[in-house]
């Protein structure tokens, strides 16, 4: 993921990744007209209830994929050279500002 230099987004150092859009997927469960039904039932449980249970793993998967796909983005991972440099610069600038 190429990210803007810190100067460009001085507002907060945002790091955007298209993978983050996956986090919107679980919100589909909030469209209640789609899920507010009795049939089909599963183990005697109305659709309204079991479909919402089914969204629990959807939520877990969405967060998990975003976690795995954006893991190397931060300045966190040791050895990601440009980021570490940037962090050093940021440190210098930050302490001057204070």
């Amino acid at each position, binding site marked *: 993921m190429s990210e803007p230099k810190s100067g460009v987004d001085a507002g907060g*150092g945002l790091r955007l990744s298209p993978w983050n859009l996956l986090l*919107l997927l679980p919100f589909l469960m909030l469209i209640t007209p789609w899920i507010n039904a009795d049939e089909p039932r599963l183990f005697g449980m*109305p659709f309204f209830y079991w479909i919402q*249970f089914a969204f629990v793993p959807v939520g877990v998967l969405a967060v998990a994929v975003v976690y795995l796909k954006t893991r190397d983005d931060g300045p966190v991972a040791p050895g990601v050279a440009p980021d570490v440099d940037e962090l050093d610069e940021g440190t210098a600038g930050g302490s001057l500002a204070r």
Partner: protein
Amino acid sequence: MIQWFELVVFGVLFGVVSVMGFLASRWRRAESLEHLDEWGLGGRKFGAWITWFLIGGDIYTAYTFVAVPALLFGAGALGFYALPYTVVLYPIVFLPVLRLWSVSRVHGYVTPADFVRGRYGSPLLALLVAITGLVATMPYIALQLVGMEAVLRTMGLNATGVAGHLPLLIAFVILAVYTYQSGLRAPALIAFVKDILIYIVILVAVIYLPAKLGGWSAVFGAASDKLSQPNPVTGRPQGSILLTANNQLQYITLALGSALALFLYPHSLTGVLASRGRNVLKRNMMALPAYSLLLGLLALLGYVAIAAGAKPITNNATGRPDTNTIIPVLFDQQFNSLFAGIAFAAIGIGALVPAAIMSIAAANLWTRNIYKEYLKRDATPAQEAKQAKLASLVVKFGAILFIIAVDPQFSIDLQLIGGVIILQTLPAVAIALYTRWLHRWALVAGWAVGMGYGLYLLYLIPNPAAGRAHFGGSALALDKLTLLGWHPFGGSQVQIYVGFVALVVNLVVAVVLTPVLRARRVSEGVDTTSPLDYHADEESDLRPTDTPAAEGVATR
């Protein structure tokens, strides 16, 4: 009648966790607990497992365990909002919480108000956030007592007057003393026991009880029959097992509003800030939904209680039936004494963990954002820790007084209000993590308008079933929505969550005022955070990582 055997099981398990609470101060021992980072955040070094139990203990409280099923028992499908709330919660907070952890680690922030202070250089905005947090947290602690008392009264300790509260008082004195001594380490350690007990109880309950009562279809059938009967007071059906045309919007906005509010509560952030690093939090955001499954199943026990014909116990202190006793009554009826005792202990201990974390969070707020900011600017770390420990005692006894002196219903109402008011800190805390575009005075104005308008709307809501004209709930019929006398949705009975409406108004005010204030060149304040602070992690030791150094930054 007192259930002696259940009481003994309860007492033994309660005793075990109390001992653990006292021993917790030696766990991962710090050089000294006389520092707020140690006492109030457990040294900021909890790993993935402890964080999981700690945040889990924070979110899924005793009150949740008794109140969510009670809501399904009384109103039907609407109560199930707790499941979507805890599913959309993690995708919402996944990214912001990481930024907050990083910036707090770099600058030694202990509370959300500390962050606001650093981000906007505005002591007033920080004070507003701190007071909002305190006011929203206090009734939440009182509610943990309501949950615990539901259990104690079911076991037969249902005396009238002040004597009826005595068992609760004893339990809370013990809790107060070990929290004073061990700080956040105590609830972190006890949370293990709590969760293991809760998992056992819920799994057994949701497998065994429906099977015993004829399967889920029989359970839903009984629930549907009972809920469709008219309420004796209003003449309308009590509820239904599906949403109606009028409460769908309420369901959506309540789930969304609750999810947005949760990590604004100071106690949730205490669990987050106590973790060791970003990866610990990321893994937790994936693993925490395991509790959501549990919560959803637990909610359905409200229907199981209907199918089993459980009747709420009359609280002898208030003289009214208390629907919060419905789950304890169900366990008491359906399980043998040993397992019922374990189940009650699970709920009781489930009250201790969040009550401890909440009182610590409230104490941190008091110490950092009021005591140190306004009363004693040159407080040493040891004085801060001492002050926080004392504050945690005051907060807990305040909560007990609440339960003893006023009707528990009042705490429930206050907690409802708490959810609405804590949402008003979202622009200053959560949006500020991403952008500083909003002007600090626009945030102050948005907070004030959102708060006032939210409280006004809550005041307008009646509850005919309980015979109350005001503060009858958080579901506002759009018909009543008024903007300076103008009713934009006149005649509509569709309901919406008040917190959501108030937040929208808050945001509109903040957005509109920002360009105005900027055009008039009103001072923006100094931002002491830098963009890269929001990405710092445990391994990047480019900034102060140890607590004494972090302290230096915070005092600036």
